[in-house]
């Protein structure tokens, strides 16, 4: 009797209670640490995205100021008829509109106003003139975009003298559609991502055209046909290892083999695509093997049972069923290739390229490299352009990953 009472008191005694509550406290603490760890990670993600959005949204807009230009009294030599003709673009480009704007700015805002307007201003004025040649005979009030220095000053963040000048002007902030249609330039007010975006598309196209078929065929071979021997082992080890090789090593390979040995053109999407294809292929092979593995053997047995050959089983039945899984893996691999920078730096894709590439053998830039190059610029105007380009890149990544998730949810089958 007494021994059982002692046992009960051992379980309910003060000391025991204390111990239990201490253990429960440790439990709660541990749980909290877990929650905090994931909280910190996600808070960092949110911080990064918000910082980028905060800095970058400015890159999609620009400040325009109302400028009065007296065309008849300016020294602009340009005929109204030329502006209506086919050579209007050239005529405008060589007419010296910068000077006209400078004069008008000087007249309107006084000393130092020539710094207020830059490359984008002349381009916009030219477009306005072509759109409405009658302007040439008038004294017109036009909305002209500011130079990038003045743009920074307009948000009270730049040169004080320029800030005072800009404060005198009548300004508005508008959406800068040219950011999506222009290419790289030295003046941040006229840069755009279209050239880099096109380069990225071409590069990814080459990557896709090479890595997808090769990756799928290799996956089919390894999963369905490969005999268990040393060769197969070597292939498997090299694929698993290639998937983990640092991307910069692929850049070195591209430099040594495609450029120095095969003499393919430098900084071309062709070479970039080839290099990225070698990098992406193992990812596709691994995803493809998993997808093929998940097709149940009964499908194969049924097809073999009605007389299909081994090839027909694979290509008529297994592969179509595994395709959604393979596509998901491929898209994720392509998204990674789209964001890859280091190997492309190695094969010379860091040159300054001011016009979008016309083909896969022409010099091109890609979006991540463009971001890298802009981030190196000293000009303050490039900061928000870099962040804006990052937003464009992230949107594309998001779209591709979203597509992959959608495909997986729509077509994934549990057998």
């Amino acid at each position: 009797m007494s021994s059982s009472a002692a046992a009960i008191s051992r379980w309910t005694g003060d000391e025991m209670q204390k111990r239990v509550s201490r253990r429960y406290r440790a439990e709660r603490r541990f749980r909290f640490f877990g929650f905090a760890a994931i909280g910190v990670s996600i808070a960092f993600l949110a911080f990064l995205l918000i910082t980028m959005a905060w800095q970058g949204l400015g890159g999609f807009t620009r400040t325009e100021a109302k400028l009065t230009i007296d065309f008849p009294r300016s020294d602009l030599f340009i005929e109204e008829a030329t502006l209506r003709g086919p050579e209007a673009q050239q005529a405008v480009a060589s007419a010296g509109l910068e000077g006209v704007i400078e004069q008008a700015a000087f007249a309107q805002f006084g000393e130092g106003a020539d710094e207020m307007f830059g490359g984008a201003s002349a381009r916009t004025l030219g477009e306005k003139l072509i759109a409405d040649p009658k302007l040439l005979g008038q004294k017109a009030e036009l909305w002209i975009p500011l130079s990038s220095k003045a743009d920074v000053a307009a948000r009270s963040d730049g040169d004080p003298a320029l800030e005072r000048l800009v404060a005198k002007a009548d300004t508005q902030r508008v959406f800068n559609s040219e950011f999506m249609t222009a290419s790289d330039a030295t003046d941040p007010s006229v840069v755009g991502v279209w050239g880099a975006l096109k380069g990225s598309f071409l590069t990814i196209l080459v990557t896709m055209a090479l890595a997808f078929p090769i990756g799928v065929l290799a996956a089919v071979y390894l999963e369905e046909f490969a005999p268990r021997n040393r060769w197969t082992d070597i292939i498997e080890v090299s694929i698993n290892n290639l998937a983990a090789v640092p991307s910069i090593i692929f850049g070195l390979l591209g430099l040594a083999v495609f450029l120095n040995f095969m003499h393919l053109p430098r900084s071309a999407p062709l070479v970039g695509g080839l290099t990225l294809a070698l990098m992406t292929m193992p990812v596709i092979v691994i995803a493809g093997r998993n997808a093929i593995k998940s097709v149940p053997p009964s499908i194969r047995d049924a097809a073999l049972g009605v007389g299909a050959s081994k090839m027909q089983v694979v290509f008529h039945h297994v592969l179509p069923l595994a395709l959604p899984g393979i596509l998901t893996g491929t898209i994720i691999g392509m998204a990674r290739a789209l964001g890859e920078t280091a190997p492309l730096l190695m094969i010379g894709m860091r040159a300054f390229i001011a016009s979008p590439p016309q083909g896969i053998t022409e010099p091109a830039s890609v979006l991540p490299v463009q971001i890298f190059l802009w981030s190196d610029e000293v000009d303050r105007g490039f900061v928000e352009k870099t962040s804006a380009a990052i937003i464009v890149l992230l949107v594309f990544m998001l779209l591709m990953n979203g597509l992959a998730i959608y495909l997986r949810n729509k077509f994934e089958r549990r057998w």
Partner: protein
Amino acid sequence: MTLSIALVAVLVVAAAAGFFARQRAKALRAGGGRLNSLPNYHGFYVALWAILPALLLLAIWNPVQTSLVEQAVLSSPTGQTLPDFDLARETILTEAREIAAGEREAGFNPESSELAPIYADATSRYAAIGGGIALVFALLGALLSMRRVGVDFRARTGVERWVMVLLVAASLIAILTTLGIVLSLLFESLLFFQKVPLTEFLFGTTWSPQTAIRADQAGSSGAFGSIPLFWGTAFIGAIIAMIVAIPLGLMSAIFLTQYSPPQLRSWLKPLLEILAGIPTVVYGYFAALTVAPVIRDFGISIGISSASSESALAAGLVMGIMIIPFVSSMADDSIAAVPQAMRDGSLALGATKSETIKKVVLPAALPGVVGGVLLAVSRAIGETMIVVMAAGLAANMTINPFESVTTVTTQIVQLLTGDQEFDSAKTLAAFALGLLLFLITLVLNLIALRVVRKYREAYE
């Protein structure tokens, strides 16, 4: 150029032959014959025989043609006047090739402009020969295989044999890539080690490739010691990044697998994976522009006057964040692989959940976690953009995280993105660094994969 015309011609021949063969097989069937294989297979069989041998020939011919053209150019009267010195000759030949291909207007060397027409001539001559042979191959293949089209012919087996060849070839590309990496790195590295002794590269403690301007001077200048680079790499990638990534990743995985309600988990896990999907250039920009100034100011405020705006801490911190989802998903897998019976046994003895995790689940999952961490380290030390943008260029051997260190990948990018001759010790050093980096990550990966696999087998 002519070779691509030949390629198109081969494709046209193959398509036509395939179509023709299919029609013939169809005609046989319409005539009352009972075909062994479907007409489509006859068509494919003929087309494949027309395409593949010709393509293979073109693929082999392409590099052969380059050297043939070079020989033809060198044996021409102008070519024989070229300097014997290899490098200068190479430069002139390269220029001549680029002028001939229309890639540039004129070369720096006057000889190249003279050689360009000879180059263009030789190229078109040899391309015509190669293209002609390829076309003959295509026609021969088409004709010979066409003769076999008949009622009893097993076209499907023939096609499947070709497809099998394609499958094997596709999977051999992985080996070829690995081989290509090893050989190209090894080849350039050997050239480098002729200029700089291996021992100095491996054990030297000063790195300043800028001083070695002349190739004959490099060996004695002592500028290519890679120890500081590897220290910087390890400091950022294996120490600072892991101090961030291991606890956060591991605790995230524990929370997601053991505590989180499924609903919450289905939200948190994809969010965490977004971190892994963000391009590294974005992390680099963020580290350089947002994190680095904060860390420098913090360093100065706690009295470290040497705090650099390219501190190891900024790069390592951001890299650690980038690695979190990687560590977390590896830990997730290995925790999930621990048999439920072990967990139940511990809980039944009265252990709390956290005690079960700490004393039973984690020790059981440890090999998998360690393997995952090794893979994470290998990924961190090979990471390029974050360190290129956020870490410095000065090769310091310091344990002060507020100071600037440089890494292997940063130096590779630095060495290869200037305008210098390809054979200088500076450029070759990049390949030697690449080789060493490749070997280190290879060993890490192999150990990690082995550890993970062995451990999986133990519980299955």
